[in-house]
């Protein structure tokens, strides 16, 4: 049986137009249009990117700032629709991109867990049953019915991570989340990630930490100016990227 890869990115391009004249209001836009001053500039964030990620594979993405790494993550996470090309994602996606957005400090930990879980696409009824397991992992059991505005940033990070990883996703999209928290938390979250990966998820991970990617990933992609500079075995690609300085 041929198993289709969980992530297929086929000749994907993403362009958007930015108004360089920085028109932010209707009033300004009306004046500029009258004077024909609108300067639209097209930005090519991704340019003909093709790759696929198989089950159980950890796919590292490297590149300088502005190379399109985060844009690529957002295209896979369905946040940005590609201008050209096609993206296919088979299975439940867990987007681990700047965790915790959507959590509200006025709500209790329990309310935030349910809301954040639902924002991540999970059934509120199922999350309700998981609340105790989630707070236990995050180490905030005593504060489950306390508004999270009293939480430290470390507690918030642990809580968000705990909610986001409380599933067995088929596709995991990770954007620098492993760099948050103290040493103990990083070790603990690393362990959790390993569990998810061992569960057979296809993982795409963006990081500026080459040692981390060397340790984790099996294959890698080097992105530059939205284009593929190199694609292949992790060691080779990372060597090439490091050599480029």
């Amino acid at each position, binding site marked *: 049986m041929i198993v289709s890869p969980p992530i297929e990115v086929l000749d994907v391009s993403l362009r958007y137009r930015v108004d360089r004249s920085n028109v932010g209001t*209707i009033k300004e836009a009306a004046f500029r249009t009258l004077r024909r001053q609108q300067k639209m500039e097209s930005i090519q964030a991704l340019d003909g990117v093709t790759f696929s990620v198989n089950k159980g594979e950890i796919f590292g993405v490297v590149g300088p700032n502005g190379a399109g790494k985060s844009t690529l993550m957002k295209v896979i*996470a369905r*946040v940005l629709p590609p201008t050209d090309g096609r993206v296919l994602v088979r299975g439940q996606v867990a987007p681990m991109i700047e965790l915790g957005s959507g959590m509200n400090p006025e709500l209790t930990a329990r309310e935030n867990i349910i809301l954040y879980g639902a924002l991540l696409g999970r059934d*509120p009824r199922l999350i309700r049953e998981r609340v105790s397991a989630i707070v236990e992992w995050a180490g905030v059991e005593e504060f489950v019915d306390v508004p999270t505005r009293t939480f430290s940033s470390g507690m918030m990070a642990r809580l968000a991570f705990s909610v986001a990883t409380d599933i067995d996703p088929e596709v995991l999209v990770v954007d620098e989340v492993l760099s948050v928290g103290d040493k103990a938390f990083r070790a603990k979250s690393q362990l959790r990630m390993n569990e998810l990966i061992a569960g057979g998820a296809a993982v795409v991970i963006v990081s500026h930490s080459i040692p981390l990617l060397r340790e984790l990933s099996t294959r890698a992609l080097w992105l530059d100016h939205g284009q593929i500079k190199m694609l292949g075995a992790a060691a080779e690609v990372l060597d090439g990227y490091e050599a480029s300085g």
Partner: protein
Amino acid sequence: MTAAQSTVYYDSDLRRRPLVAEFQNFWRYRGLIRLLVARDLTVRYKRSVLGVWWTILNPMLTIGVLWIVFSNIFGRGGVLDEPYVIYLTAGILLSTYFSQGVIAAGSAIVNSRNILIKMYIPPEIFSLAASVAAASHFVLSLIPLFILQLVLGQGIPWTVVLVPIPAILMLMFITGAGLLIASAAVYYRDVLDISRVVTQLLNYLIPTFWTLDFVEGTAVELIVKANPVYSYLVIFRWWVYGGDRPPNWTIAVMFGSAVVVLVLGVYVFSRNWRRVAVRL
């Protein structure tokens, strides 16, 4: 579990079917909508010492001031059968529902920017949730109106069971108008400010604290009646406390405008959402 998860599937080539996709999303994401509404209500009430009472007190203070100022002008005998304060309260409550609802639905997507740029959720969900929250506030704010009706001897007529009709149609109206504003607000920052001014103008153009006899027979009367919110208001007054029976065309305008504005708003948003996603 695994089988169910495998059905979760994203293909960027599958285009959203305009209109159909949005209404399907409203249904599919009803659990999330409920949570977002609950969040809005909890946050608003937790932030103030008075909690839920603030929702009731806030319009009452506005109404109190307007009542003191205008009761001698508009509350004179002959024009109104009902006590002026009841006429005024019903007017303010409905127009507040309209203006706050439109602005909340219109700003919901931009306000949820930091969520929408990180995980996939159909943005229209946030507009609908904001409208439902506004409708909840409206329902709560009816309590003081009912109290006034009982205290001042106006009573609560049986037609009060029909009040959900204008409330739900207004919910459709503000969701549609909100999505129209939201489609534009991602492009230009001042769309929301302009919308605030426009909804405020529309509110002054309906007889909330003033009575229609002041403009009778003038061109202004036509402008007032052409405003769809006018139809909601007169029907609301008729059903909630037994105000004057409005002409039948207002019922047609109320139903028609709710459907037209909702469909138009969803359609325009649907056509633009790809660009909206990139511009956020």
